[in-house]
């Protein structure tokens, strides 16, 4: 859907994007992850053609990004707001018309969305009379109203209350099922693990790792396993105990091994104490820390 080749962006002293290559597959829910100041917003602004890259190209579909593609993108920026003095309905129609919808079409779709998100009574209100949560719903509707093929959310869940967060997660996943490509940009990496199927990790304007989330987590598997056992275990052979906890059904342990702990498992199983055994995949946060400390792992040749 989006393919960035050697995209570079410089601000007066700072290199915001250093020849990055990214490829966002059509239909994916893509997590654009990285700490604050990594270059996420710079890249998003380039996709939205708010700024132009100094070098490199961005392809949208199978051709270079064009001004008219703006109508096919829905963007919810991190710095978002609405005209305070304007009525909600008028404002939604205005923003939709800027994206190229006709007034009649915009009205029809907006009414549908307002009904679904239970905000029909907002229509005649002024934005300044809405609560923060209500305004967030309106912002969400304005982002998706023109049924864009590509949805970009920059830090979507900061500032949203928990109820809206869930509501919007649900709606985004629904849009994704209907065929939209979704990009999430956030520095809170744990928050997107559950919804993203692809990620790109950016740090200091460079792509650290990119690909399907599961593949990446598997690649960074480091021999950590979790055990649930009925009786306490004192020795873990060559394994290092990372975590333990006691609960009414028994004990839980997280242990890191150099090799696959086959003998440990069969011994515990023989004693009849093993309840559960599972490989622990590293979280995106762990992967990020690992990469920053030790550099990225190369993709193993198959």
């Amino acid at each position: 859907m989006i393919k960035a080749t050697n995209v570079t962006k410089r601000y007066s002293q700072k290199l915001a994007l250093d020849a990055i290559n990214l490829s966002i597959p059509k239909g994916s829910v893509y997590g654009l992850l990285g700490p604050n100041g990594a270059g996420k917003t710079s890249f998003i602004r380039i996709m939205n053609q708010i700024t132009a890259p100094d070098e490199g190209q961005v392809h949208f579909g199978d051709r270079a990004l064009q001004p008219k593609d703006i109508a096919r993108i829905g963007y919810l920026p991190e710095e978002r707001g609405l005209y305070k003095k304007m009525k909600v309905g008028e404002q939604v129609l205005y923003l939709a018309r800027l994206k190229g919808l006709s007034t009649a079409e915009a009205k029809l779709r907006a009414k549908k969305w307002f009904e679904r998100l239970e905000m029909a009574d907002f229509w005649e209100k002024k934005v300044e009379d809405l609560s923060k949560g209500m305004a967030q719903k309106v912002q969400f509707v304005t982002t998706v109203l023109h049924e864009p093929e590509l949805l970009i959310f920059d830090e979507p869940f900061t500032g949203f209350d928990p109820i809206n967060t869930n509501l919007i997660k649900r709606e985004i996943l629904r849009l994704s099922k209907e065929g939209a490509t979704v990009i999430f940009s956030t520095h809170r990496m744990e928050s997107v693990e559950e919804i993203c199927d692809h990620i790109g990790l950016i740090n200091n304007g460079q792509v650290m790792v990119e690909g399907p989330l599961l593949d990446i987590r598997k690649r960074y598997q480091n021999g950590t396993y979790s055990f649930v056992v009925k009786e306490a275990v004192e020795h873990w052979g060559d394994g290092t105990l990372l975590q333990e906890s006691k609960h009414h059904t028994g004990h839980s342990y997280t242990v890191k091994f150099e090799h696959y702990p086959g003998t440990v498992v069969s011994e515990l199983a023989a004693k009849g104490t093993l309840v559960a055994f599972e490989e622990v995949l590293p979280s995106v946060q762990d992967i990020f820390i690992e990469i920053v400390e030790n550099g990225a792992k190369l993709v193993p040749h198959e």
Partner: protein
Amino acid sequence: MNNPILLIIQREFLSRVRKKTFVLVTILGPLVFAALLIVPGILASMPEDDKNIIVLDEAALIIPEEGRGEYQLEYLDPRENDLATAKEFFAESAYDALLYIPTGENWDPDFIKNNILLFGKEDPSINMVQFLDGILEDRLNKQKLLRNGVDPEVVAQSVTQVNIQSFTVGEEGEEEQQSATGLKMGLGYIAGMFIYFFIFFYSVMVMRGVIEEKSSRIVEVIISSVRPFQLMMGKILGIGAVGVVQFVIWVVLSGGIYLAITTLVFPEMLAEQAAAGPGGAEAASIQGFEIFDQLRAINFPLIIGGFVFYFFAGYFLYSAMFAALGSAIDQEADSQQFMMPVTVPMLIALVTAANVIQDPNGPLAFWMSMIPFTAPISMMIRLPFGIPIWQVFVSGAILIGTFFAMVALAGKIYRVGILMYGKKVTWKELYKWLRH
């Protein structure tokens, strides 16, 4: 087809025109203005209460019959009273004021003029003091002339008032025109003030709009749909349209109010003037002809055309600067320090208005009307005086050229500024954005 600039213009225009404050200001503006012009006139034309002044005239300078209109003079006999008894009498009487004219050792006018006293129950009005001054000065003048052996009649006859009639002659010997300097001065001043007011008022409105979009954080949503330049121009044009509508309504309303007042409130006064006797009627009609002549001396199409042109060109120039300023600022409270340098040229144009009027074709007036930042005001002040037409075109061309350059510059700053938050902006920083 949705043209984004048109959509933006439409929103900017409607969101302002539909505001209650716009409706109020637009309708009440002319009423307040008319009230400012008319109320003092009405108050001034109301007759004051009669004032009775008791006079203790030791110098036998004035005669009671000289009381006029609302000022009635009455004598207190100086042979039976001195200042102390006169004051006592005055305090207990119903008189409004006590005038005391002393006589010196040997009736010295220079002693008398410095020792005349006026006592009032309340502060004597300026009108009363002027009235008494007039009588006393006239008396003392005459006495001095007589003492020097000059007949006051001769002096009165020899006082002359000169009345120059000035004309302007066209280069190709066109018909002479009466120059009507006073009327032109008034027109120049008013047109210059209006231009200043409009440019400043609506340019600041543009700046506020930009800051509003920035501080409400909607700007990034908008510029993901339209180019920043389109947003800026849409705002400038939309608010310009608000200005035009407001101005047209003001002109129409003011005209209506003026007509209504002259026909409803003041017809008696006009009739009174006409009926003031044959002399009065004649004077009135001569005055009428003079005004008619003077109006003919003024090139109204040029002035109106110039006003419209300089209003728009000046507004575009300044609103582009104010838009760029607004984009660099997060909060309206921070705008003051940046507005000052931008508005200084307009203030200079206003401050030098008097000099420009005194010599509308002098070097100051010429250069002020060529520099694009002062031209809208200074040229408007000069226009009624009839200036070489090439100057109008050159000044107009410079202004339009500067306007385009300014819009391009402002667009560059704006593009960077609207996405910049929490940065303390300096002029150096703005210059950097230009080269982004």
